[in-house]
């Protein structure tokens, strides 16, 4: 059966240009993850959660079919315009590239701060990510010290789910940093080193490694063009808690002393 991809992230297209063979790493309800030999990830799924830099978007029906017909470890071959599995092919001839939005300068930080007042973050106060933990992390990122590694190890991979809460919060912090720089260069290097240590899921790892290059998904970068509560709510709706976790990271960063 043939399916047609509609949108592909720039990181996904780059991987498809450089790789001839991938493997299915995992299959879950909303899509499948493919990996190359070095563990770089390519996600095939719907646009339900917006567009991802490492994502390839199909319609909901096709994703359902792809999920049903895929098993972990299945071989995938890449041709010029086709992702081929023994049971199906995904055509890339009509694909549009999702290009990351680097126009961080457009963001209205004051409006974002104002509108964050409409989002309820109270559930974090009795969690593993309360004000004290957040302050320690933000201070550590800003004024690098060797103790930052311990703090980061606490956050990385912490929490249930596909992208654990600690990672989503860090992703939010990195986005807020792209809007208004505050992180010490040595902190970036440390984050990169830790995320290459397989301390979290490969989906989280893919998100953070791209976030370090200031590449974020469309639901996140929408905030720099439209800082409204609606945009925040759209991001909040992502995943079970991933969207809110990301917002929490941005909120705490923009409001740090």
């Amino acid at each position, binding site marked *: 059966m043939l399916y047609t991809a509609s949108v592909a992230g720039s990181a996904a297209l780059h991987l498809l240009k450089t790789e001839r063979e991938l493997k299915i790493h995992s299959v879950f309800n909303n899509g499948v993850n493919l990996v190359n030999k070095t563990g770089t990830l390519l996600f095939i799924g719907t646009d339900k959660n917006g567009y991802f830099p490492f994502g390839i978007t199909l319609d909901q029906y096709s994703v359902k079919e792809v999920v049903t017909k895929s098993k972990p470890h299945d071989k995938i071959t890449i041709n010029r315009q086709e992702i081929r599995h023994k049971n199906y092919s995904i055509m890339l001839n009509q694909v549009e590239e999702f290009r990351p939005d680097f126009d961080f300068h457009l963001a209205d930080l004051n409006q974002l701060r104002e509108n964050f007042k409409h989002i309820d973050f109270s559930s974090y106060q009795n969690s593993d990510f309360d004000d004290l933990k957040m302050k320690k992390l933000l201070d550590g990122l800003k004024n690098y010290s060797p103790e930052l590694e311990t703090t980061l190890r606490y956050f990385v991979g912490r929490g249930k789910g596909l992208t654990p809460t600690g990672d989503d919060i860090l992703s939010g912090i990195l986005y807020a940093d792209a809007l208004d720089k505050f992180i010490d260069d040595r902190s970036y290097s440390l984050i990169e080193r830790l995320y290459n240590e*397989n301390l979290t899921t490969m989906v989280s790892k893919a998100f953070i490694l791209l976030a370090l290059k200031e590449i974020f998904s469309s639901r996140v970068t929408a905030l720099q063009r439209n800082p409204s509560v609606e945009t925040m709510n759209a991001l909040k709706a992502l995943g079970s808690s991933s969207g809110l976790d990301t917002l929490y990271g941005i909120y705490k960063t923009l409001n740090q002393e």
Partner: protein
Amino acid sequence: MLYTITKPNTYQDSIVLMLLSNKLNEVEGVNKAQAMMATPANKDILAGGGFDTEEMREAGANDIVIVVDTDDESKVEEISALVDSELAGGADDEEEVEANNWRKALTIAKEPNVALISLPGQYAAMEGMNALHNNLNVFMFSDNVSVEDERKLKETAHKKGLLVMGPDAGTGVINGTPLAFTNIINKGNIGVVGASGTGIQEVTTITDRLGGGVTNAIGTGGRDLKDAIGAITMIDAIKALNSDPSVDVITVLSKPSSEAIQDKVNSVLRSLDKPVVVLYLGDTPEYTEENIFHAYTLEETAIAALQKSKGEEVSFEPSIKEDVTANFNDKQVGIRGFYSGGTLATEAAMLIKHATGEESAEDEAFVYKSEHHQIIDLGDDMYTQGTPHPMIDPANRLKALESAASDDEIAVVLLDNVLGYGSHKNMAAQLAPAIEKFLAAKKDAGQEVVVLATVVGTDKDVQGYDSQRRILEGAGAVICDTNDQMVRTALNLIGEKVEQPVREVKSFDKTNEDLTVADSLKDLISGELSVINIGLEGFTEALVDQEVDYVQFNWRPSAGGNEELMKVLQFLNHYEGDI
């Protein structure tokens, strides 16, 4: 005692894992349980919470790990099954859309009004009747339904104020939603009812491309205008479109039928105030009427309806591709049409016959086979036994093109590429290499030939109208805008021309048919669609895209598939007398 279950390379949302943990904690005999992605940070949390096991420590960051504390070892199997079922189904936060019996399908469907049936013919009629008993309209894709069953279904539907579209209905648009093999068409003020699938597709896509719109295109099934059926669906559908205030023009498509049936349909049309365009494809219309335009081809039908929808006079000039030339040798006098759309093949046959005057030989394998020309419908049952339809699978057309390379009589080849839901996602890319090879073989043999192709689709179809045209063009085909234009271009290339019929304007007395329409039919064509899909799950693709509510009924034959016993059960289920 702690037991560990590891699910390698498995992902779930945090909410699923939280719910799973909660469910496991509720199992009697379980002291406590926890499910998490086994990242180092989470493993520290598990160890700190009293869930420290060797297996948990060994699990990787991409694995789900579940640790259960229970004193009852016999619980482990139950928990393992619960974990599997929760991870398999519990993650789907979307609404339940699958059922395996009528009761469940009707319970979970949201005010369903259409059953889309694609079961094998012997079961389709039975389930069609079940659908009607449950007050659902029926769209029956299935073929091999007996004429008797079709009549029974349609009579029952008519009495209940419902519609049976089909059997063998390949195409339909209901209130803007495409069903089965159908293109995505702009909504608009033209209503179509047709006994031909690709005929509806050709007319509605031309309408769309020229800026018009069709909100309802009701397929009746190819036999509806036969004497044995009596045009029951056609007439009910015409009345329904007439009652819809958003419809300004009604278009009727069919192959010619008996005089009695055509008179019956025309009588209903002559009682309408709304303008009508009617096509009995294959006939040469000898007259037209002030309010009813009698068209000759599918393109003319579409143009006439569009002009009438704008309150303009009908004026259609057929076209050909002017700048196509070829030097044929003396032997090269033949046209070969390798079609996937049956009605398009019929139209080609009609135009070639009318232009050349060559009669067709009796040969089931051809829609038209004269001394020099051949038109084949590769979607005909005789070509699709054991192989998919040529709109899905290019194999038969590739073979036809391959063998055409050694046919020295060929001057022009005709190909159609029908887009839309259900069709191949990139047929042009499949046909292109075969076209290139065919043209190269002919060139090597010192012959010039022309391959003409037409794409039936809109810019909203998933295959991409423009890109399909470009791919075929890149392979050397000349792209025609319509089937009408393609066949006329082919005829022009071999020095023939089909004349447009001259039609006098006739007047008939306005008839006085009962045009009353059941509310249920009005609701069908202008209300919200909600579908129970019985059979091919692929048909839900269009419903998902169009955000239409549906339930997938995963049908299995009752009574172990024993047809006689099934009929007894069917009778008992609907018996209303005393037993």
